[in-house]
């Protein structure tokens, strides 16, 4: 059986990829995708811990479903914002969106 630590390493790698995407990418959609990656890394952690340590109840699975639902809503709102910004300013580059900057 695959040991728990492998899952954790995979999830940590996935999270690192996501955080790099958020910090380094200029495209707002790519940033959003980075956030999704991080969320899924967390989901992976949750499922792994659940399976290996608390498999006699369903808390971990339910929690993952909650996270998925929230992530879906977040993406919906985020994409809507990005589309709206794109329509007004014809760009999705995060550092160009600086209306509130001094």
């Amino acid at each position, binding site marked *: 059986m695959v040991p728990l630590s492998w899952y954790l390493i995979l999830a940590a790698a996935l999270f690192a990829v996501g955080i790099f995407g*958020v*910090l*380094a990418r200029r495209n707002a959609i790519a*940033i959003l995708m980075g956030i999704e990656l991080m969320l899924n890394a967390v989901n992976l952690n949750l499922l792994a811990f659940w399976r290996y340590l608390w498999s006699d109840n369903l808390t971990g699975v339910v929690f993952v479903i909650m996270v998925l639902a929230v992530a879906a809503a977040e993406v919906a709102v985020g994409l809507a914002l990005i589309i709206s910004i794109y329509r007004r300013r014809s760009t999705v580059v*995060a*550092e160009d969106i600086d209306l509130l900057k*001094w």
Partner: protein
Amino acid sequence: MIEIISWLIPLPPLLAFGLIVLFANRSNRASHTLGIGAMLISWALAMSVFISAVSGGELPVSTEVEWLPTGDTAFNIGTWIDPLTAVTLFFVAWTMLAIFVYSVGYHNYGNARDPDDRPGFPPHAGGIEPMYARFFAFISLFAFAMLALVVTDNLLVLFVGWEIMGFCSYLLIGFWYGKDSAKAAMVKAFMTTRVGDVFLLLGLAYLYSLTGTLTYSEILLNAETLERLATTPSVLGPGTSAAALIALLFFIGTVGKAAQWPLHTWLPDAMEGPTPVSAMIHAAAMVSAGIYLILRIFPLITAGWRHGEPLPDVMVIIAFIGAFTALFAASLAIGQNDIKRVLAYSTISQLGYMVAAVGMGAFVAAAFHLITHAFFKALLFLGSGSVIHGVEHGAHESGEHIDPNDMTHMGGLRKKMPLTFWTFLIGGLTLAGFPIVTAGFWSKDEILAEAYGTNHLAIFVVLALAALLTAFYTMRQITLTFLGEPRSKAAEHAHESKWTMTAPLAMLALFSLTIGWAGIPKGFPVLSSFIPNWVHEFVGATLLEPVESLEFNVIPLLVSVAVALGGLLVGYLMYRRLEAGAPDPLARLGRVYVWIQNKYYFDELYDFLFVRPLYWFAETFVYRGLDRRVIDGTLHGVAGLAGRLGGFLRNKIDLPIVNGSGDLVGEGIKTAGFEGRVIQTGRVQAYLIVGIIFAGAMLSYIFFLS
């Protein structure tokens, strides 16, 4: 009962004054109804007091209440009804009632208001007086003051009433304030009487400091206090008693109020007021109040003196001023052409008789003349008002522009104004002392008899001469006004006044004839056998010691009759054929006549002696020196100092410290914000990095350091 009534007597006119001023002043009808109604109530109350006093009621009646607590004791005020109060109430109530009713007709009530009339000017074409309601308010206040002065039991309230009257006379003399002459007269009357009032107040203060009371019963009817005052040397030094000094100070008050020489100048000018006011001031109220005061303090004047002894200094002064004024004013009256000014000087002269009588110690004679004078002088004033009214109407009809007061434009009015003529004739004969039938004969004769009987021959001669002049100017006035032929179109067109004016005349004429019969001296042939000398017995009872009545003497009587008839005859003969425009027969006197016409230049003298130096003093010292330099200088100095202090506070404290610290806070925050804003890049990834660094630092801290 009398106690309560005596309190109520002065109040209705005061109430009427308040009501007219506050509520009724829009309605002429309501105003005169209130004024006359209140006077009628006061009159009825006064009569009930008088009747109960003369019908043998216990006198004096006095009541008092605590008014002003002064430490352990209290200053009491109250009412005091003694024979003198009773007779004064009698003539005051009657004459005032007559004047109130007369005012209705005098101010043309019933006629529409003339659109050309303006407030402050007399109505010039028979329209109703524009300030009708105001007039009734003023005379109501006046009546209140006089009645309060009469019924009070102490000198302080007397002084209050005295001053209110002074103020009312100021308002009423200047009632037609649009006329410059009326304005000047009102100020003159007020200022001149004020000179006397100051001395009166000094006398009050001195009396109070010596006795601690101003109540009549505790001073005037207290032989012990009088004795003490008479023997205490006054502040002026030994030889003058405190009683004499106080009496003298009070007497100066009377000199001002009763217009005696040398403070007489205000009274003739006071003729600027409406005629009912002249009657009010010169017959019913104000000048009578002056005489009432010296009659009231008679025990103080005569303190330490017994009847028959030589007169003390203060009484000599009073007698001298009285007698001198009587002759002096009578001599002025003969040269006046203004019908009211003749009466004004005649008033001064008659008041001089009373003052002289008081100075000789003839209390009853003075009081008697005061009563008769009030009636016949009110009658004469109101009669002259009726004449002026008639002539004014005549002048309006004939279109002439003449002075309606000027007697040289009159003549022949007996046919046009019969009722006014007969009543005026009665008043005039009473003033002249026409024998037997008129009241003035009895009262004036009593003063002359007193002067003769007590061996004051100088006074007797002076007063007899004054009586001669009195009869002369009275007849001159009557002849010029009523007899002969009209000397102007206005006089031809004159007509009789309304009943509201003539009815009071008739009433006063009745009193002028009959009132003297109450004082027929004992021993007078025939008459005294069936008419007792009521005045002497009744009024004489005011004093502590009964007054001796003089032996009847025929010489003063004959002199009195001779001068009265002689004066009347000469007056008639000289003026009966005066043509229009002809010079006054007196002009033959030359310089003397000029002097008389100019009132012996007393106004000019006072102007030179007092008015102009005062103006100069006011201008030079008070205005330029005191006001401009000292007072303004102080003010400017204080203002400059305050300005400098303010400048220091502003520039050294407020701006740098208070404002500086306030600004520092604001500017500091602003600068910090300006400098610190660079961290707000607006790039969400930059924030995220900061967040991650902090989260990492936090986690490191938790895992590795704790």
